[in-house]
């Protein structure tokens, strides 16, 4: 537990000496997590109970009632955002897995660093810039449509700009490097000798993937899922610029409640709903993964010394 933060010297002396370094090392991160995660989430929960506008209204729970009263709007937008987030995550996995595998197994280390750098560099600029770059790329008469038209695949005036396909494309591009990184780190941990052993015992390519590679990269995959799905499902800027008239997302509505109606309580209620649903989905995915591959999610060497979260 986090006694080290609040406990005085009396409490500290009661601790076993071996716990000292651990608590000291964890203290900064613990303090940071309390200040930047626990407190804000608690405030969010508190705000959501007030009635807007502003955060000086009475505790009525009215904003929750308004939300539940319009399931079509709030539920519909939530489903739309989740579907888009899941779609982008799935595409990221499909593209990132072979990429990460190739980087880890088929590319010389020096080239590999260069490729990883190239993958990341565009994402060091502002997200807004990337979105506008995509706009120019897929605009009617833009480079992509002109190229497709030259190949006779489409009219150069036709475009996916201002559709949800454009948003899906953007979100996939936006979060792809994170998925590549997560899977690359997991694939790097697979000992080549394990695969050699499997091959020598007659395991086919598919069997090696199914019984060795997939389970061993599962923790990386779950990490990538968290890193990609969570922000993609809550995104709204991409949809606002590239989605056109179909660009309304759950996140858009949250942002508008704050910037236009000054209704922080409604926005807080919506944010909590989104957070809860995302956590629930991630939990379900984790459960499914553990069901399918018992033991795969257990990290080597992590025998119960982790988390004070229980």
């Amino acid at each position: 537990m986090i006694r080290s933060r609040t406990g005085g010297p009396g409490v500290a002396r009661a601790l076993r000496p071996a716990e000292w370094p651990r608590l000291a090392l964890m203290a900064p991160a613990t303090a940071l997590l309390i200040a930047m995660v626990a407190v804000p989430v608690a405030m969010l929960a508190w705000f959501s109970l007030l009635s807007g506008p502003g955060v000086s209204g009475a505790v009525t729970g009215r904003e929750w009632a308004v939300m539940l009263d319009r399931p079509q709007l709030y539920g519909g937008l939530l489903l739309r955002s989740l579907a888009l987030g899941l779609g982008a995550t799935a595409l990221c996995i499909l593209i990132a897995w072979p990429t990460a595998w190739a980087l880890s197994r088929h590319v010389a280390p020096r080239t590999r660093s260069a490729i990883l750098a190239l993958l990341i560099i565009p994402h060091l600029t502002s997200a807004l810039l990337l979105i506008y770059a995509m706009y120019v790329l897929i605009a009617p008469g833009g480079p992509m449509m002109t190229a497709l038209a030259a190949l006779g695949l489409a009219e150069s005036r036709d475009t996916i700009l201002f559709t949800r396909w454009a948003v899906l494309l953007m979100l996939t591009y936006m979060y792809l490097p994170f998925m590549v990184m997560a899977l690359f780190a997991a694939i790097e941990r697979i000992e080549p000798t394990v695969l050699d052993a499997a091959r020598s015992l007659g395991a086919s390519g598919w069997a090696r993937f199914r019984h060795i590679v997939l389970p061993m990269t599962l923790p990386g995959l779950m990490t990538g899922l968290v890193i990609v799905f969570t922000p993609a499902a809550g995104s709204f800027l991409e949809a606002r610029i590239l989605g056109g008239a179909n660009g309304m997302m759950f996140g858009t509505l949250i942002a508008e409640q704050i910037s236009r109606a000054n209704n922080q309580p409604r926005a807080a209620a919506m944010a909590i709903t989104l957070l809860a649903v995302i956590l629930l989905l991630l939990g379900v995915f984790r459960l499914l993964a553990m069901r399918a591959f018992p033991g795969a999610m257990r990290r080597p060497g992590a025998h119960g010394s982790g988390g004070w979260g229980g």
Partner: protein
Amino acid sequence: MKAPIALAGLVAGAALLAAPAGADLPFEGQTLTVLNWNGYGSDTELALRGFEERTGATVRHVYHSGGEELRQILRSGGIGQIDVALPNPTYILQMVEEGMLQPVDPDLLDNMSKIAPNFLEVDDLYSDGALYGVPWVWGSTGLTYNTEAFPEPPTSWLVLWDEANRGRVAFMDSPIEAVMLAALHLGQDPHDPDLDAVRSALEELHENVQTYWGSSDDFNRAIITGAVTVGNYWSGNAGSLIAEGHPVGYVIPDEGAAGWLSTWVIVRDAPSSDLAHAWIDWMISTEFQLGWAEDPEAGAPAPANAEAAALLSDAARGRVQAYGEHAERLSIMQSLTPEQQQVYTDLLAEVKSGL
């Protein structure tokens, strides 16, 4: 481009001649503090030198980046330091209630009579019958169209609802503008329409909308690339597109359009109330308003001074979209109550969601 500059110079010269040479300048050595956006007219060479020549006073600027920050500056020590400011009139009532402003005495403003009368009818300028805001410049949100797609200029908002323009409309992503436009289209009071009718009209319009634009960049890109051909857009930005030679037209439809005003206010406990009045009188003078609007680089909106508007060159009039008949058909946006803000926000969100 020569004619307008010569004209502005002529007016400036005439004004200089009119001032008696060597007369005592009434505010010699004093300093006026202005709170405004950076680069919004009041800090031009024309504004600063013209004021100094008239009054002998120098001008100091404090900049803000939005209505919220403007009020924050006044709250945190600006009162007693700052003489004049330029808030959106929708903020005036709140600022009066917070004790930030003092009334303007119209009798101290010689140029007051030149302000187009309809701008002085805006409720937000007054509190308890006293004038607090002096109209300076204005703009509108009118019908903007691609002249190649519409060789015949449209004259009605109906064109946005026309089935022929499905997927060709860029509509502004602003609750108040959306509600006002739909109300005008329906022939209702834009400040207090039947919201159910407005909702149905906007839902119908949603079928035609290609994108809800959020910034001038979004609109410009959409209309220049041909992704859309018609929409509602700000006069000043449409004027810039026209001045840059894009195939774009701008019109205030017969039903009218939403508009905005920038207004000067005097801050409570201004170091010199007389000097503040002198500044506002200079800002609304024909000489300043004409000079600012004629400068193609200055980005001026349309002048509220009707005399200045009438004297504009054709090029400048097109750039700033200062057409008298436009001004008459405007409904100036007024402050919304927090409840209205919530209702309008939710209404447009529901329309945009398509759910």
